[in-house]
């Protein structure tokens, strides 16, 4: 140190002083270091002792994922075990849009590897609008083995795209059952909210589909099953590393229906290319044997999301295939209403069976003429004849005599104007005209003249084919009414336990048995010698029936209906109600064929086919119109 040598005295002292100052500062720095480390240590104590429980829970929550195990949806079979809805396993190609920057480019690139049709693209675009960003959405379903292999080899190029094995719902019977079995579809926001409100959302973790219509909707809670839980250890990207514990899912229950698949198919095909509905019921139980709404549609289209084009076609078709005619379509019952009117007359003592009127071919109410179909009238008409030949005048007079209150009161008993409570959703109540109804609907009082056409099932009358079928089944069953139901029993898959649906009658009509017997005899007469005789010629069983024709457009006073002059869509609807065998009815049926004219001609032959098939097991070919059928 050269400085020391030059000027020892002062420098040494300064140097010592400086060294001392330096060491003080160093000591301060040392104190700072210790203080800082103590703060760190305090932080560690806080995190690792005081808050350990909290952070340990967080770490466990990071590590352990609760993965739902989706239960198999219950299958649906008909009364003979024919499968109407089942599941099959298939591989789908799915995209998680939230993980993809350019969806269109990705799909274009994918299309080089697997076949992606324009329909797939449209369907995917629709799904995309409806779903959340981090949902995995199918772009292609039912991949072939070759496609899976090709994708697997190129997988690294497609982050956010996965092949998944999924169970798919399939409806092997297609359009025949579209309006009964219904279909499932992807869960939407409204359904999510409903599930949440019902506190069943947890059970739907991992489930993408829910029953949308028909039995799939009404029996959703039985079909769905109970979701299982798998605790898995996951890494930060959510990949499962290993399974920690597992609670297996509980499969959804199976539905065994009262429907007869072959009868249903036969009835559907019997309509040919005409529109209409048919409901067949077992009178003694209320079990629905056939439930047809024609045209139907292929419910399989909806399972993995329908593409907008198919959706548009279904919605815009003038045939309105999406409307469940049997359940929600309401039609004037026409002359099929007459036997019920006659029963009302007997019950209220307004007519005896023998009491006859002379039918001039019209009924004058004030200066308004109500015409009978038969020009010149039916001559002397008693109750039996009024039903067998379907005399309008008899019922104009009867309606006038009964009055609207008695008619609506009696018909309500038979279930007209109120929902039958069948076990599929979307039922219409129909319209049972009454003073109260008119006041509610039109804010007008009832005019006595309006009662007249009610007597022949016209006017404001509008009922569903299901209501008609239930009413005739009740007559067939001697006044004991059952709620119509489509499911026979629910069967738990594991325990095989069965829950029967509706084994007890709903109510017994407040009607004398002998009065019902009178009506039943007349209904047998219809098919033996009356308006239904031609359709039922040569039947190997005794059947009962009633034809009907429902006006679609109102005719002007004095105008006659000429079918050829009326546009197809405005032609009359043909109706027919029937049951057989007459002594111990096993089946009751209501048929409506839209815009097909007289019930005897278009609807009765279909009913005949259904009864023949059900009672005799006879196979049936397409039904043709009976061209010479007498008007009812």
């Amino acid at each position, binding site marked *: 140190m050269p400085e020391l040598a030059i000027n020892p005295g002062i420098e040494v002292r300064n140097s010592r002083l*400086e060294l001392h100052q*330096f060491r003080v500062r160093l000591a301060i*720095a040392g104190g700072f270091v*210790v203080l800082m480390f103590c703060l760190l240590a305090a932080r560690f104590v806080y*995190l690792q002792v005081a808050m350990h429980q909290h*952070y340990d829970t967080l*770490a466990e929550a990071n590590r352990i994922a609760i993965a739902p195990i989706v239960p198999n949806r219950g299958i649906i079979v008909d009364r003979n075990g024919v499968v109407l809805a089942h599941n099959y396993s298939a591989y789908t190609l799915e995209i998680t849009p939230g993980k993809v920057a350019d969806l269109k480019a990705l799909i274009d690139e994918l299309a080089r590897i697997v076949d992606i049709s324009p329909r797939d693209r449209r369907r995917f675009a629709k799904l995309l609008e409806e779903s959340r960003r981090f949902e995995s959405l199918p772009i292609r379903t039912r991949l072939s083995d070759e496609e899976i292999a090709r994708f697997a080899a190129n997988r690294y190029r497609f982050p956010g795209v996965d092949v998944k094995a999924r169970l798919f719902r399939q409806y092997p019977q297609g359009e025949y059952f579209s309006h009964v079995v219904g279909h499932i579809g992807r869960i939407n926001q409204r359904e999510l909210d409903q599930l949440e409100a019902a506190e069943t959302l947890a059970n739907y973790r991992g489930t993408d589909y829910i029953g949308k219509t028909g039995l799939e909707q009404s029996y959703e809670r039985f079909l769905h099953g109970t979701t299982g839980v798998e605790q898995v250890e996951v890494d930060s990207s959510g990949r499962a590393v290993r399974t920690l514990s597992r609670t297996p899912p509980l499969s959804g229950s199976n539905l065994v229906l009262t429907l007869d698949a072959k009868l249903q198919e036969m009835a559907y095909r019997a309509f040919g290319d005409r529109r209409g509905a048919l409901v067949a019921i077992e009178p003694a139980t209320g079990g629905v044997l056939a439930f047809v709404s024609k045209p139907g549609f292929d419910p399989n289209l909806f399972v993995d999301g329908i593409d907008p084009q198919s959706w548009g076609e279904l919605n815009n078709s003038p045939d309105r295939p999406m409307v469940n005619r049997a359940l929600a379509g309401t039609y004037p019952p026409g002359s099929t209403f007459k036997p019920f009117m006659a029963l009302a007359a007997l019950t209220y003592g307004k007519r005896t069976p023998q009491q006859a009127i002379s039918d001039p071919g019209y009924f004058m109410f004030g200066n308004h003429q109500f015409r009978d179909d038969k020009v010149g009238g039916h001559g002397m008409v008693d109750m039996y004849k009024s039903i067998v030949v379907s005399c309008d005048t008899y019922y104009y007079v009867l309606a006038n005599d009964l009055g609207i209150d008695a008619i609506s009161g009696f018909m309500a008993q038979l279930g007209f104007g109120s929902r039958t409570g069948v076990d599929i959703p979307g039922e219409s109540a129909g319209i049972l005209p009454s003073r109260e109804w008119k006041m509610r609907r039109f804010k007008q009082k009832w005019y006595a003249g309006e009662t007249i056409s009610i007597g022949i099932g016209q006017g404001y009358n509008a009922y569903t084919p299901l209501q008609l079928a239930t009413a005739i089944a009740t007559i067939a069953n001697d006044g004991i009414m059952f709620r119509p139901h489509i499911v026979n029993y629910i069967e738990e898959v594991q325990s095989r336990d069965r829950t029967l649906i509706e084994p007890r009658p709903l109510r017994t009509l407040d009607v004398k048995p002998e009065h019902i017997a009178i009506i039943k005899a007349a209904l047998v007469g219809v098919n033996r010698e009356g308006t239904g005789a031609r359709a039922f010629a040569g039947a190997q069983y005794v059947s009962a029936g009633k034809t009907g024709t429902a006006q679609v457009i109102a005719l002007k006073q004095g105008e006659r209906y000429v079918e050829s002059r009326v546009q197809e869509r405005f032609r009359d609807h043909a109706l027919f109600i029937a049951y057989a065998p007459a002594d111990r009815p096993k089946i009751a049926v209501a048929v409506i064929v839209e815009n097909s004219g007289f019930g005897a001609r278009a609807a009765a032959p279909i009913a005949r086919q259904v009864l023949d098939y059900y009672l005799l097991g006879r196979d049936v070919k397409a039904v043709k119109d009976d061209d010479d059928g007498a008007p009812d």
Partner: protein
Amino acid sequence: MAHLIRRISRFFTAHVDGFLLATLLALMVTGLMVLYSASSANVPRVSAQFVNMLVALAVMWVVANIPPHYFQRLALPAYLLGIALLLGVALSGEVVNGARRWLNVGFTRIQPSELMKIAVPLMLAWYFNRYEATLKVGHYVIAAVLLAVPVAFIARQPDLGTAVLILASGCYVLFLAGLSWKIIAGIGVAGTASLPLVWSVLHDYQRQRILTLLDPTQDPLGAGYHTIQSTIAVGAGGLIGKGWLKGTQAHLDFIPERTTDFIFAVYSEEFGLFGNLVLLLVFLLAIARGMVITANAPTLFARLLAGAVTLTFFTYAFVNMGMVSGVLPVVGVPLPLISYGGTSLVTICLGFGILMSIQTHRKLVQT
């Protein structure tokens, strides 16, 4: 023969400080162990780090054998070279991950800020040593400018972590060189007052880090993710930890950058509070030894350099552990001698080499 062995052993150990080496090796061994776990038993990576350590130890040994006055001569050229390189980075540096930190010098890429970690305290120590006899306030101002220039360059790259470390090392020199308490207090007041100004010049991501520190849950999947996950790992460690190789936060990939900047989270989860206190103690021992060496250093240059190196080492450790345990913002500072990565290992060991050189050459002079 025995004489030869003694001479060889003396050749290797003459300038090595045993105590310092022991703490350093303890940290390195711990580092390898944690790295093995953090990398999920990735042997090539552990081997690479082992090689890094050998290289760093060799650098340390070479530096330890260089007498301190050579560093004194290197100070100015090293500093000027560093400034030139930083200028080069600012003008034509390569942008990696949004920051301009690297300079391509033909055969390789270098990160000049790394050089400045040593060059800045060296320069300041040299400067104060040169004007030791005539120190006035003006000298402190010039020293502050000498410090501010590289810090400003580095902060603008932006590399806040390195800038803070270098700023800290320079401040330590200023403090140890006897900066008046009045001025320190003045700077403290002025600094607090100018916080809003600092805020306005910070980059968005830097602001985000500070905001995130205040409330990490604001952005749990973005900027807050690192802090949240590392804090969980530390807290989940508990008193004695989950055991080596058994940390779930680390092994299931929840801790980001778990072999480098966040390796302490892995250590903490697996060895718990007990392990953390032991680790703090080892760091403290190394720092204490550095302080002893500093206190006994013969010249002002040596004292200031040794003090700055020791306190910078402390700063590394403190900032890293503070960041992992969620009390400091996330800045890219590795845990010295433990985090994976050769550059920081070499820089740290170079500092240790300087300390050993100062310590052992003083002894030799005295004997």
